[in-house]
């Protein structure tokens, strides 16, 4: 293949019943930077039914071009129908980079498309950059184990593709005055040719991320004193949409089920933010959380070993500090009318 035939940075605009997924907007922000460096247009591509109205929002978040394929068969995401659409666009317009959100649908679609285009796909990227002179996408992701990053390159194939973790890139502030082109493509799909049918979609937000995948964990220790006080941990977690963890002693005390134990004989976790509250920091616990990116320790004992691994330490009484924190966040929420959240 002639690599120079491929130009432009594309972002898959994932939408569910006409609401654009947050990660797609984040990717427009990230994609904008890449496109500017490469001096090419940034495009979003949008597949679905009655989705055209969303195109302007895509432009306002940074796209120069929006490709739209509108078809009844595309009403719900399905690998077979969506990938046909993407194949059509990619083969016709030959982008050099395509980014997808690392959501169930984004990953599913990207994997299928990469196979049919027999090109490289980097999964769960957390850092994006380009090597301008070689026009190479530098997609970096945590190599496994957690605290090393690997930069993945795709030198000989185009488009270069990556799925990107939600909540790591920044969306631009929408600018409704931005101008852009909207290009519609026709596709010929027949429902009776589809081998899968979506019978029903059920939304329930109650499902909490499990510890291993959680971005934010509030972990409580024996220092919370008793089951009653431990509820503070749950309250803080709920207020900030975090998952709850505990030390073994807490689990043994029956304040939490074993699935929520962090440490050597529990889960190994590497969230972006880890609150360690009333936790001494015994090695068996620390081995399970020390690779977390940002660790906040609250402990009344200034010599507690947990402070050695903490990014920020507060020496004080959890019973006093935690309620204050909860207070602050609740206030913030009411002021700001709720932080934008992509969870």
């Amino acid at each position, binding site marked *: 293949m002639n690599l120079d035939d491929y130009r432009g940075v594309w972002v898959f605009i994932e939408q569910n019943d006409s609401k654009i997924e947050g990660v797609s907007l984040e990717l427009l922000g990230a994609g904008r930077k890449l496109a500017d460096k490469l001096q090419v247009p940034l495009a979003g591509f949008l597949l679905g039914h009655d989705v055209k109205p969303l195109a302007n929002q895509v432009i306002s978040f940074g796209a120069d071009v929006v490709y739209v394929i509108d078809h009844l068969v595309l009403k719900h995401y399905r690998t077979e129908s969506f990938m046909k659409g993407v194949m059509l666009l990619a083969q016709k317009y030959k982008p050099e980079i395509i980014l997808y959100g690392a959501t169930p649908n984004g990953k599913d679609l990207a994997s299928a498309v990469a196979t049919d285009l027999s090109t490289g796909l980097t999964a769960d990227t957390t850092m994006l950059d380009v090597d301008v002179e070689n026009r190479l996408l530098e997609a970096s992701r945590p190599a496994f184990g957690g605290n090393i990053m690997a930069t993945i390159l795709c030198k000989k194939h185009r488009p270069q593709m990556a799925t990107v973790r939600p909540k790591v890139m920044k969306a631009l502030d929408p600018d409704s005055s931005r101008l852009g082109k909207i290009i519609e493509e026709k596709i010929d799909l027949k429902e009776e040719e589809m081998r899968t049918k979506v019978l029903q979609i059920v939304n329930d937000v109650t499902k909490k991320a499990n510890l291993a995948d959680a971005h934010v964990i509030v972990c409580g220790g024996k220092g919370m004193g008793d089951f009653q006080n431990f509820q503070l941990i749950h309250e803080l977690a709920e207020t900030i949409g975090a998952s709850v963890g505990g030390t073994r002693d807490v689990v043994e005390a029956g304040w939490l089920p074993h699935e929520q134990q962090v440490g*050597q004989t529990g889960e190994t976790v590497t969230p972006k933010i880890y609150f360690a509250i009333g936790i001494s920091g015994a*090695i068996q616990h620390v*081995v399970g959380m020390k690779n977390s990116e940002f660790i906040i320790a609250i402990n009344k004992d200034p010599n507690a070993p947990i402070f050695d691994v903490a990014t920020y330490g507060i020496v004080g009484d959890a019973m006093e500090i935690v309620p204050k924190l909860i207070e602050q966040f609740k206030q913030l929420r009411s002021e700001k009318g709720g932080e934008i959240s992509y969870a």
Partner: protein
Amino acid sequence: MPEKFDVIIVGAGPAGTSCALTCAKNGLNVLLIERGEYPGAKNVMGGVLYRKQMEELIPEFWKEAPLERPVIEQRFWMMDKESVVQFGYKGLEWAVEPYNNFTVLRAQFDQWFANKAVEAGALLINETVVTECIVENGKVVGVRTDRPDGEIFADVVVLADGVNSLLSKQLGFHKEFRPDEVALTVMEVINLPKEKINDRFNLEDNQGCTIEIFGDSTKGNLGTAFLYTNKDSLNIGVGTTLSSMIKAKLKPYELLDYLKNHPMVKPMLAGGESAEYLAHLIPEGGYRSVPKVAGNGVIVVGDAAQLVNAIHREGSNMAMHSGLLAAESILEAKSRGDFSEASLNIYREKLFDSFIIKDLEKYKDAAHTFEKYPQYFNDYVPMMNKAMSKFFTVDGTPKREKQKQIMKNVTAEKGTLKVLQDIYRAWKAVK
């Protein structure tokens, strides 16, 4: 109908595996059952593997076994609060084949060793707990496991289930240990770059050193501590009898922390990263606690039979050798077609003819002596340190003078006769 094996062996530690290996090599149909995720998963030892008994099982094993370092230096420390009297031996003859002994990490070693038994034809089953022996009219005929359809049968069941050996307790072979019969040992594996280890212990690459520590390491309780070098980690541990632990209201972890922060030890560990923390019992009753080791259709080996030499911290070697002797006995019993207690008791005889019981017998009083007379740890170690300090401090006193003074201090503190008694008692216990 569940199938029947020649031998079922419970526990893939050194004892069980060596028995399985020997039985399988000799064509028996062997089932080896391990409760761990894999052999060695949870097994603990300071880490000195003795060459001799291993070599009986797998000649030149050092060519392929996952060993850490061959031990070329053994040090002994008499440790006081801020000083230590050391002696030891370093010999390059131990740095070349066939070597003397090695440091090992059990998690890897046991796995490799068990695999040897599998290669020899034994069937290994992990993650399966044997809950009890199946006894039919006075004879052990198989085992019951915690799995569905979990009963399996065999001519002989070998109990290699380690120090707690619930199974041999169930059979009434021995009762609960007295607290003074077991030592609780805690140890930590501390990651440290190879170069650092080589510098601090003054070793070439792939040379190992072991340090046995007496005295302040156990806060004056009966017991010892150790510090061993692996490739790029250290094993540090400390153990004391359950009884003294209870007496002194000590938490095992406190004891280890105390040792790790001891001014003589801390610099050796500086910059290291704790990798794992393990706690385990060692039977220290020695000769006096060797229980019944054979019954109708059943044999007990290794720690399960209390075969550990507390003084020299030997165990894995005795475990292996006892496993080997058990296998030989089973083969003989098989040829006789008789697996009764009478027939299997040749194992007991073999055991008593071997170095194992001879050593245990030799040291049978050691533990008790030291427990009864704490002064060995509490008084003499500090005394020795004072003496050395005095001896080496250059203050113009002629050396002969010094020796006189030292002896005076010693006897002043204790009284000549008492010192002589103690020394004699100690000598009797260990020599």
